[in-house]
């Protein structure tokens, strides 16, 4: 072995070194391309036509308050650079945007933009500065399989504002946390990711996608008329309303029975 190596010329050694370096670099590059996941990109983003359509929509519906270059307009609306498609999806698909007036917070209403238009505007905003993106799954795929854990996480992270069964609640200066009835899985996921209005953001590192799905699963199991086997949720506010109704109905029933006991035959 040693004799053979000595026999090599300087040029050969250099060549071998270069070759080894090239192979190593190629190998690392290939490995990298395999290991690093594809960035989550909305399909719309890859289609320049959709982005152009989104730009046209933006120029018609959003430009007044958010500016020609998404930079925001003082006193009207914030900059949209870097907010991401999840924020656009949430704000427009719940009808909060385009806002009709200034106020404590944008009101939800029937959406002005169609789902296709929402996607187009989202793609346009996403192409200007990036930001948080929607997960690849949508709809029922966003329902986790552990609503019990979702409930615990909901009570820890969300219930302080949204109430423990998603009934919503008051915030400061006329703002409020909305009730979660009727919110779709996608909207909830987008809200957690993007933190619309007063809501804090919950990144995928803070609440993992699985945890977010469990939370959505829990919310779905207690809103929209679910979780009231008695037939009426009585406001879903806990023991106060339930106790009051129990007291009134119970006392009335006891009164009736007492009268029946004492009645003459």
């Amino acid at each position, binding site marked *: 072995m040693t004799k053979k190596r000595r026999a090599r010329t300087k040029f050969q050694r250099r060549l071998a070194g270069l070759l080894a370096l090239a192979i190593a670099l190629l190998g690392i590059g290939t490995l990298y391309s395999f290991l690093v996941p594809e960035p989550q990109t909305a399909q719309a983003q890859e289609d320049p036509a959709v982005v152009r359509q989104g730009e046209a929509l933006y120029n018609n519906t959003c430009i007044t308050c958010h500016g020609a270059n998404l930079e925001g307009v003082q006193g009207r609306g914030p900059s949209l650079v870097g907010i991401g498609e999840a924020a656009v999806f949430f704000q427009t698909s719940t009808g909060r945007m385009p806002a009709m007036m200034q106020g404590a917070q944008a009101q939800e209403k029937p959406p002005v933009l169609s789902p296709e238009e929402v996607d187009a505007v989202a793609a346009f905003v996403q192409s200007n500065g990036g930001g*948080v993106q929607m997960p690849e799954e949508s709809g029922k795929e966003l*329902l986790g399989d552990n*609503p*019990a*854990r979702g409930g*615990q*996480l909901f009570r*820890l*992270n969300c219930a*302080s*504002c949204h109430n423990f069964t998603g009934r919503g*609640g008051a*915030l*400061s*200066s006329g*703002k409020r*946390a909305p009730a979660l009835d009727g919110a779709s899985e996608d909207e909830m996921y987008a809200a957690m990711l993007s*933190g619309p*209005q*007063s*809501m*804090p*953001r*919950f*990144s995928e*590192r*803070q609440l993992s996608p699985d*945890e977010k799905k469990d939370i959505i*699963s829990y919310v*779905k*199991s207690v809103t*929209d008329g*679910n*979780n009231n*086997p*008695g037939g009426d949720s009585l406001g879903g506010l806990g023991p106060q309303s339930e106790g009051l109704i129990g007291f009134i109905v119970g006392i009335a029933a006891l009164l009736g029975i007492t009268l*029946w*006991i004492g009645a003459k*035959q």
Partner: protein
Amino acid sequence: MSDDKTPDTPSEEELAGMSRAELTRLGMKLDGVELIEYPDPWPVKGTRAEKRAERAVAFWFVLSGVAGLASVVAFIWWPSKYVAPGDDGYFLYSLYTPVLGVTLGGAVLAIGIGVLMYTRRFIPHEIAVQDRHDGGSKDLDKKTIVAQFADFGHSTTIARRSMIKRSLGFGGGVLGLALTVVPLGALLRNPHAQSDNKNGLLHTGWQHTSDEKVYLRRDTGDPSEVVLVKPEDLDSGSMETVFPFRKSEEEDEEALSAALLRSDNPVMLIRLRPEDAVRVVKHAGQEDFNYADFYAYTKICSHLGCPTSLYEQRTNRILCPCHQSQFDALQYAKPVFGPATRKLAQLPITVDEETGYFIATGDFIEPVGPAYWERRS
């Protein structure tokens, strides 16, 4: 008491010859009660109405039994395992609690109705009269009873034995005092005897009791799962509730769970938005408590100790849901609205250079939560 109208007590022979009804009336008469009306609800035996009444009562008892059986059957076989709304079998599952309630409650109700029906249909509704006494006791009774008491004091010689009376007074008095000391004494505690202890009012579970690092830990819903917090975990404009964690507690499930449950432990770790972070005003003495845009405030309201976890990321206000106090996260969490008068205590944090996780560099420098007598600020 002396009776004016003692009913004629019957002789032995008379007693032997009396019927059950007569004996009943006699017994009541001896107590001064006269039965005016004592009707038999069913004077004619064996009528269809009587049989119907009997069957009605039996029906309720049987119904109670059937409902009770049904509740046992439902308890064992009704699908009680959680089914998410919209999945197969959700409707049956959602009826589990109502079915149990209706059957068991129905069993109790039916047995009650049965008993009441029996009382109403079969027990005679008698009318009885009892004379009441007029005026006070007679002179004779008053005099004799007073004499009896006086005789008691005299015959027991207690009236003239002052040594016994005094010693009894001493013993009884001390016993009474001892009985009050136990419940009252338990209420008297010096809350500051252990102030330097981590269970004292001055300290929380964040207190450094040794050289060990105190990490910021996230609650994932599973107390035995330890997830520490890194700066990159939080997006700007986000908030997370964190709890203290020490490496020595890693295998101690009880300690892990206790750290999450301890009432003065929860801390809000807030990451401000960069545009807000430049407007921060820090409190004197707390200049280095934050780590970049990360600020950690106690979750315990300085007013009455509610969890102030309503964080508005745009206005950077921290709201307390109990009495609407508001704190400004940009100004050392000072109160800006509502009944709270003191700022939220700030936890000094930094990032551990070895591990990259957040650690607390010390306990709060002031007590968290509501005021107490000796609190200086």
